[in-house]
C-alpha cells in the first residue's frame, strides 16, 4: 500500500513539475541599450580587472513602454564559442532552462537613464568568451524585456576573461604533506625489517 501511495505521489509531483514553464526569451523585446567598457577581443583577469556597464531605455520607443519595469538584473553570459561542446552552458528559449547567463553582476531598481555599474570580475568566473545582458523584471520578478552588449547573433563586442588558476595556496600545503609522507615511509621501512 505504501508503495502505491508513493508512486501516486510521485506521479502527481511529476505532473506539477511538468506544468511550470519559464518565460520564452524570443518573446522578450530588446528595449534597453547596454554597453560595457570592454573592447572587442579584450582579455580581462578574474579577481583583478573591472568592467563598467551602462544601460538606458531606447529613447525611440513610445512612451509608457517601461510602465511595468521594476528591476534590472545584469548578467555575464557565454558567447557561442564558449558554449560549444559544453552542454551545461546551452542556450534554451525557455528562460527557466536557459544556461547562457550563469554569472550575476548586479540587480538594481529600474530607471530609464543614467545607469552605470562598475564590477570587479569575480574569482570564480571561468576562462571563456563573454558578453553582458540586462534582463528587466516586473514586480512579479518575471522577465519582460532585455538588452545586451552584443548583436542578435552574439558575434560582436565579445570579450575574454581569464580565470585564476587556483593553484598557489595548494603548493604550500603540499610541501607540508610531502614531509609527513617521507616520515611515514621511513617508519614503514624500519618496521618492515622486523616483519620479514
Amino acid at each position, binding site marked *: 500500500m505504501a508503495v502505491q501511495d*508513493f*508512486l501516486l*505521489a*510521485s506521479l502527481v*509531483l*511529476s505532473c506539477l*513539475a*511538468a506544468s511550470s514553464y519559464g518565460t520564452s526569451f524570443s518573446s522578450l523585446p530588446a528595449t534597453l541599450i547596454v554597453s560595457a567598457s570592454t573592447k572587442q577581443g579584450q582579455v580581462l583577469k578574474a*579577481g583583478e580587472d573591472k568592467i563598467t556597464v551602462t544601460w538606458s531605455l531606447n529613447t525611440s520607443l513610445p512612451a509608457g513602454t517601461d510602465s511595468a519595469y521594476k528591476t534590472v538584473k545584469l548578467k555575464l553570459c557565454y558567447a557561442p564559442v564558449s558554449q*560549444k*561542446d*559544453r*552542454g*551545461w552552458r546551452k542556450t534554451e528559449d525557455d528562460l*527557466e*532552462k536557459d544556461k547562457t547567463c550563469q554569472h550575476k553582476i548586479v540587480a538594481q531598481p529600474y530607471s530609464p537613464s543614467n545607469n552605470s555599474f562598475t564590477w570587479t570580475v569575480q*574569482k*570564480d568566473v*571561468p*576562462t*571563456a568568451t563573454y558578453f553582458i545582458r540586462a534582463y528587466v523584471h516586473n514586480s512579479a520578478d518575471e522577465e519582460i524585456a532585455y538588452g545586451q552588449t552584443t548583436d542578435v547573433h552574439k558575434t560582436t563586442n565579445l570579450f575574454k576573461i581569464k*580565470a*585564476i*588558476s*587556483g*593553484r*598557489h*595556496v*595548494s*603548493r604550500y*600545503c*603540499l610541501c607540508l*604533506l*610531502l614531509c*609527513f*609522507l617521507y616520515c*611515514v*615511509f621511513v*617508519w*614503514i621501512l624500519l*618496521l*618492515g625489517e622486523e*616483519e*620479514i
Partner: protein
Amino acid sequence: MRSFHLAWISFFTCFISTFAAAPLVPIIRDNLNLTRSDIGNAGVASVSGSIFSRLVMGVICDLIGPRYGCAFVNLLVAPVVFSVAFISSAEGYLVARFMIGFSLATFVSCQYWTSIMFTSSIIGTVNGVAGGWGDMGGGVTQLLMPFLFHVIKVSGATPFTAWRIAFFIPGWLHVIIGVMVMTMGQDLPDGNLSTLQKRGDVAKDNFSKVLKNAVTNYRTWVFFLLYRFSMGVELCINNVIAEYFYDRFNLKLHTAGVIAATFGMANFAARPLGGYASDVAARKFGMRGRLWILWIVQTLGGVFCIWLGRANSLSIAITSMILFSIGAQAACGATYGIIPFVSRRSLGLISGLTGAGGNFGGGLTQLVFFSTTRFSTANGLMYMGVMAVACTIPVAFVHFPQWGSMFFPASKSGGNSEESYYSSEWNEDEKEKGLHHGSLKFAENSRSERGKRREIAAAVTPPGYNSTPDHV
C-alpha cells in the same frame, strides 16, 4: 576479522579517490576549461587504468599474497592524489584520473583476501559485504567531496582553490590505510604468505601455469563479460550521475551530490544482499541457485536502468535510480558468490580478470554512451540498460560438471566430483609433488554447492587423495 576490515576499508579508500572528481566536475570543468569530451574521456580513463592493474594484482595475490599488494597500491597512489592540486589542463586532469584509477586494483586484493580467510558456505555473503562496503566509497565520495569543498570554501578559499585542497583528504586516507594493512594485516588464516611459503605449508606457484589455467577456463570469459554489466555500469554511473542530476533537473551541486551518493551508498546493503541471496539459494539449490540469482538481479538492474533513462521527473528518476542500484549491486555481490568456485589454483587471476572486465566495461560504456554529444545522457542511460539485459543472458551457458548450470543438472557420468574438477587444474607431475593439496581441501569444503541433493555419496574418495604421503 581484522583482515576483513582492513580489506574492505582499503578498497573503500580507493573508491573514494577514484571518483572524488565526479561530484566536483561542475567546478573543475570551469577551472580547467573542459569540454564534454574532456570530461567523458577522463571518466573513461579513471576506470580503464585498473583494467591492467587488476590483472597484475590478481597475479600478485596468487604469488605473494594480498597484504603486500593492497598496501603498496595504497601507498603508491597517495602522491598522485596529492598532485591533483597542480592540474592546470584537460590533459593533466585525464592523466591524474587515469593514474588514480589504478588503485581500484585493491578490489581484487580485497575479494581474494576475504575468499581465502572465510569458509565457502558463506563466501557469497562475506565477499558481498566486503565488496559492497568498499564500493560504497563511490557513494560516500559524492557526499564527502562537495562537503569538503564547501567547508574549505567557507574558510576563505576561492572555489578554484578549494576543490584542489579537498583532494588532500583522500590522499591522507591512502597513506594511513596502507600503513595499517602492512602492520596489522595477515594474509591467511594460518599466518602470512611469505612465512607459510618458507615453512612449506603453502606451495609457491608458477605464473604461466596460473595464467594458462585461468584463460583456458571458458567460465572466466563469461564472467568477464557479465561483470561489465553490473560493476561496469556502476562505475559509469558513479562518473556521470551527479552531473546528470545537476544539469537535467537544475539542482544545486550539493543536492546533486546527495542524490548521486544514494546510488553508491546503496552498496552498503545491496551488494551484501546479492551475496547473501546467492548463499541462501545455494543452500537449497546449490550452484544452480547461485546462477539463477545472478541472472535475475542483473536483468532487473538493467530494466530499472532503462526506466531511469526515460524518467522525466525528479521523483521518478530517483526511484528508478535506487531500484537500479539495488539490482546492479546485488548482481556484483552474486557474481562474487560464484567466482571463488570457478577455479582454486587461479583464484586471484580470475578475480582479477573479472574485476578488470568490470572496469573495461565501465570505460567502454562511458566512452560509447557518455563521452560524445551523439546521445543525451538520458538516452545513454537507456541504451546502457538495454545492453545490460542482453548481455546477462550468457550466464545460462556456465556449466559446472559437478553441480550443473541454470537449465541442466550435474553431469550424470561418473568421475564428476568436486575433487576431480579442482585437481584437473594440476598436471600429474604437480599432483605427485602434492602441490594440489590446497585445492583438494577446498574441494571437500565446496560440497555445500550441491544444495540439498546429496545422492552422490560423499564417501567415495577419489584415487590419489589418501595415498599421497603427507610431505612435511
